[in-house]
């Protein structure tokens, strides 16, 4: 028998540190206003660190669609961020950076703590958010307005802490209420257009959760804790794939931390290679 004593949730600890560090980073200009240059300032929509411009690529896309023009400054900032997530994995943003996710995780804990029972647990397909993202881009194009930026709860969580203004506050409150009473992680899993955007980007990610089929005992712990959607783990746990390749994976590491059998790891692997290996495995299984 294997030792089932609880192990240290390494990934979650690291991830929490990063999440709070990001939160703090965005608050620095307000916590300690240093005369002159702040080494960092801005919001999640756009910021500057040590003079390097960083812009939310989905926001930038909306601006490009809305204004029907492309500006270099905008591109530079957006491409920098885009490249980062493109190389690691799109929804790493959701798992490691986004403050809304952090807060929703916290809400989820609270809900469990207070044992709030949901009368409905609405489920929406996780691909819906891609459609929402597309609609938003279309709307931006049609209305000449960066539509989502007006309601964006992500920017607003930051701004909200700072300025307490904006419609985003309402969308954020709506999300929290939904989370606590009606649906589990519906926002992050299925609705958030930024998540949708990164879901698409995530296809190209070069870091993956890898399974060791020899160790997996199919306890399904991993599926229960998955922040994205349990179904992204189905191919690896139940269908013999080696790598989790779904665009939705946030590399949050929860599945790794909760696997009592050490069957899961996060490994770097080129996306194409990972897919190829998955396919080969499938072919192997079929043939076997």
């Amino acid at each position: 028998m294997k030792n089932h004593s609880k192990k240290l949730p390494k990934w979650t600890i690291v991830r929490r540190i990063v999440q709070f560090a990001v939160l703090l980073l965005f608050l620095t200009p307000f916590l300690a206003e240093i005369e002159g240059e702040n080494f960092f300032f801005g919001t999640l929509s756009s910021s500057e660190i040590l003079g390097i411009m960083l812009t939310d690529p989905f926001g930038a896309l909306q601006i490009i669609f809305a204004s029907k023009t492309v500006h270099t400054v905008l591109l530079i900032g957006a491409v920098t961020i885009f490249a980062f997530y493109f190389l690691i994995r799109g929804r790493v943003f959701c798992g490691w950076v986004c403050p809304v996710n952090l807060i929703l995780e916290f809400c989820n804990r609270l809900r469990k703590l207070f044992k709030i029972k949901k009368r409905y647990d609405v489920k929406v397909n996780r691909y819906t958010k891609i459609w929402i993202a597309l609609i938003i881009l279309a709307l931006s194009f049609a209305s000449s307005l960066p539509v989502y930026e007006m309601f964006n709860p992500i920017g607003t969580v930051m701004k909200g802490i700072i300025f307490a203004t904006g419609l985003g506050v309402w969308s954020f409150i709506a999300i929290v209420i939904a989370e606590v009473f009606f649906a589990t992680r519906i926002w992050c899993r299925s609705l958030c257009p930024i998540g949708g955007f990164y879901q698409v980007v995530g296809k190209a990610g070069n870091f993956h959760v890898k399974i060791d089929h020899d160790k997996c005992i199919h306890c399904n712990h991993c599926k229960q804790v998955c922040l994205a959607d349990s179904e992204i783990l189905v191919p690896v746990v139940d269908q013999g794939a080696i790598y989790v390749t779904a665009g939705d994976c946030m590399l949050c590491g929860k599945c790794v931390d909760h696997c009592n059998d050490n069957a899961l790891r996060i490994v770097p692997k080129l996306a194409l290679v990972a897919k190829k290996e998955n396919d080969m495995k499938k072919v192997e299984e079929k043939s076997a």
Partner: protein
Amino acid sequence: MDERTKVQYVFLDMEKVVLNMNFLTGLKVLVGGLAGYQLLSLMKKGTRSVLRPPGASDEDSFLAQCIRCDKCVQACPHDVIKVGDASHGVGIGTPYIVPREGACQLCEDFPCVEVCPTEALSGIKKVSDVKMGVAVLDRENCIALKGNRCEVCYRACPLIDQAITINYKLREGDNIHTIFEPIINKEYCVGCGICEERCVVSEPVAIRIKPREIEGLF
């Protein structure tokens, strides 16, 4: 695995997306989207008379280009840039200035323009590039026009003797006093609003900034 499999894979994903779209949900989204579009177009009319920070292009393209990141707000050393709330319609989240509560001080290096990640605020190299609006004198309430030595707007103007000049004219029915009439020169006035901020007359303020390019809606 050959190329074909790869392509298949991609299509499989797309297929899933389409298959998973419930028709009803799609309809709802469509209707919602259209309704949202209507609402937005209506709300858009609501932002016309707001004074934008330096370097904002005309209102429509400003609204299109502003990513609502608040960097200009944070960058402003004088804390005069405010963020639009729900009452600003689609201008929600966009930066604006209320001169009476704090006018643009026309910083030499324009940090707000400098930090803008889009072209929403751009094209400002020197003060004369700024075209936020133009000052308008309320001739009924200006106390200088009544002969009092005020002209606070003139002396406070960062473009003194250009944007605002004084027209010296004899006071009617009084041959020993002059009226120091502030004259606003549209070609020089950048609309920073310092005159409006400083004006000593309240309710209504005797000099106000008319935001740039107010054009007919009809």
